[in-house]
């Protein structure tokens, strides 16, 4: 219940921008991102850590923002799907480009979470095998694509990034 939660002020760096936010101690990172910062890219598919649609990166690691309390993120760096595009040039991240080109997107609801999991994977392992990709995104559910074109997108992104 809302009344039981106390308010706290935290500093949060989101997509390179620092925010000072008053939050309730029971608010999740997903709620803060979506409702306070209007960053609605991270989606709520289950709100219980089962579908991965809310995946964002904290200090480079993929986490489920629906299961993470915002209070725990004080002073940390959060990267969301909105932070991948170059705000000045509009240039997309190679992973985003690869998802577009390889039909890794259908309804698009799982896409932001899927792309963020792929980013965490490729930052750590720039040359993953198909099996490693499947493991890297195993927490992200997609009901439309059957995953094949998503896996192909991530393989293509890795290839793009190696060429950069």
């Amino acid at each position, binding site marked *: *219940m*809302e009344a039981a939660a106390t308010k706290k002020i935290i500093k949060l760096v989101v997509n390179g921008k620092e925010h000072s936010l008053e939050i309730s101690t029971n608010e999740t990172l997903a709620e803060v991102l*979506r*409702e306070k910062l209007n*960053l*609605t*890219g*991270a*989606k*709520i*598919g*289950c*709100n*219980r850590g*089962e*579908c991965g*649609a809310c995946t964002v990166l904290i200090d480079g690691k993929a986490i489920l923002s629906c299961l993470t309390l915002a209070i725990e993120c004080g002073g940390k760096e959060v990267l*969301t*799907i*909105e932070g*991948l*595009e170059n705000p000045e040039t509009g240039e*997309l991240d190679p992973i*985003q480009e690869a*998802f*577009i*080109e*390889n*039909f890794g*997107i*259908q*309804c*698009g*609801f*799982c*896409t*932001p979470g899927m*792309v963020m999991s792929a980013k965490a994977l490729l930052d750590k392992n720039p040359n993953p095998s198909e099996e490693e*990709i*499947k*493991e890297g*995104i*195993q927490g*992200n*559910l*997609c*009901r*439309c*694509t*059957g*995953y*094949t*074109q998503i*896996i192909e997108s991530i393989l293509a992104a890795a290839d793009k990034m190696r060429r950069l």
Partner: protein
Amino acid sequence: MAKEGAKVLGKSVPIMEARDKVTGRSQYVDDMKAELCVKMLGSPHAHAIIKSIDVSRAKKLKGVEAILTYKEVPRKLIPFRSQRACYAMDKHLRHVGDYVAAVAATSEAIAEEALDLIDVEYKVLPAVFDPEEAAKPTAPKIYPEGNINLTPREAPTLHDWGDIDKGFSEADVVVEDYFDVTPQLHAAIEPQVCLAQWQGDKLIINAATQTPWELRDMVAYVLGIPEGRVVVLTPNVGGGFGGKYVGRYPIITCLLSRMAGGKSTKLTFTREEAQCYTRRPRGKLYARVGAKKDGTITTLQYRAYFDIGAYGSYQGSLRLGAGKLSYKIENARFEAWHVHTNLFPCDSMRSVLLPFNSYAMESIIDEVTEKLGLDPAEVRLKNMPESGDMMPPKPYNHEFTGFKRARFDIYPGKQMLRQVMEKIGWKEKWKGAGKPTAIDGTKRRGIGLAYAGTHCGFLTLATTNIQVVINTDGSAVILSGAQEIGQGINTTLRMMAAESLGISLEDVAIVTSDTRTSQYEPTSARASHQLASDGHLLLKAIEEAKQKVREIVAPLLGATPGEIEIKRKKAYVKGNPEGAKPLRELLSSSVTASAVGPPGSTYPEVKPGFIAHQPLALAAEVEVDIETGVVTPIKLVIGLFPGRMINPGVVRGQAIGGVIQSLGMAIWEEFKYDEGASAYPSRDFTDYRIPRTLDIPKVEAVLLEEVDENSLPHEGLPYGARGIGEMTAWGASVAIANAIYNATGVRVKKSPATAEVVLEALKKESVK
């Protein structure tokens, strides 16, 4: 196969929404803010009457702005055309979770707290959950007039031809069996969501729906306001698969907004609510087949009990579903009972009843084949129709324009099955029925086939419109009621228009998903018909617009309209392309034309007497651990007939996505209702396991293209293209059941083939 000279068709083009979707810029309904949050109180009982309901304590809670119970809901039945329509809320509750009350409050927490303060007294009634039991006259009555949802009531849907007794007497072998296919949930990752707000006297609804027009009409009817004052917007839809048509929850959201003085209200289902909202039916299937020694099927008898849950939907009117015309059989009897139970209602899901019909038929054909000592592929090929074949009567009812007997136009079934077999390695691997292709300790491998024939798209009862604008600069705008839900229809329609006008894709804009500006199409994203119906009407409208342009420019070019060609934003007199003039110089205003159909249009019947039927084929390779019962898919090959691929990348995406959805139904996706606890354990993604990356096998798609070049653009099949979206999700259950038999010699007769189900079957019969 790219069309000769085609500039746009046949090239893989990313869907136009892709960039916004991949940057997080795309807005889905739950991304939008509302003043009030809506929460619903669900029935704790499977069958009950509300004896009394008191909301006075809840009303006093600060932040509660409106409470809705059956008392405030207009007594208007929805959905239209349903054979068992219902009220948005009723005092008679027919399933666990049925709507008792709804609250709109300033926060989610307050709304939830208010639900706890609603005092309800129930009179609990006996309940029934098995469709065969529910069909008996002695069963608890969910409706006073009985539980069978058909017209006429208390009778099955029947489609029969020939003489089945004669068929059985001619048979050398007869096989009879029973199968149980349990429900699959739609389980889109985006839960159902609706946001209602008022702008003056206009009601603006943002909803994740596959059918915005149908929703508009229904809301207007229940709220008693003119349809034109209800606007439905669908910014993006996060997956549908049949689970996001019309529903009672948008009406409840709108009624609460009105009660709260026009404040905006938003209802977003929790995952639990989404998993207990719609599903496929359960099918209890009885099948009997007779065949001659040479493999000729002489007769087929099929009886199905479909559990459609507590309320009517379109399922009830779909009668027998597809697959009856899969084989050329002289004598057949198909019988289906659609029966209400006290489970939450079902709605159409991709391929609707085909997964059930084919589970029984393709299982029993493998069984009869083994008895005859024949190859299952050969028996299928022997009985399969070909292009031009005359088929038994199709069961058109009075609502459809039909033909007594139908002739298949292009039907490359044999070619498809052979290609699918080749890709699974049938010739090298198949060692005979019940003989594993490989053994490794407790693990046994096997292969299985499935085939079906289904119609392409469907005849809609209601009028569908499309409008095309040719602008003064030669670019174009399409206004359509087609609904984009991730399947790429917006891009596909633009590609067809670009091809037809000889302009680039960038020069074609499209307006959909907004009932103020797009065109009326009540069926929208349903039954994979949009490609055929909207595409067909689009080409008709373009032809009409071109004719208008011809009439305007002909005098300016010193010719008659019949002599004018319009291409690449220019007009010229036939035979003189050098004299072409830009439309910009010839047109002083844009030109608009529209096409409407049906009536007056005959899709998907391409010409009188012919029906656009398409073959489907599937091959599966599995590994079964006979100690644990665990089934691991190794490879799937799906065969489809898109006719002509407008956007091959999208077609392949549909094919693979659909077959993996079907794989979930085959092995892992287990719908569960716990009668003792009055709860659905399948209410989350942990207990209801949809396929994940690590589950998926290698998948290949055989996508056949064949077009009647003499009649392009095809009447009803634009450029020869056929919808395949839903036809991808039909057959993994039975292909895998047949592969499990091949691996173990034991037939699994219940779907999904979970480890538990397989182990039980293995225990019953000793593994050969």
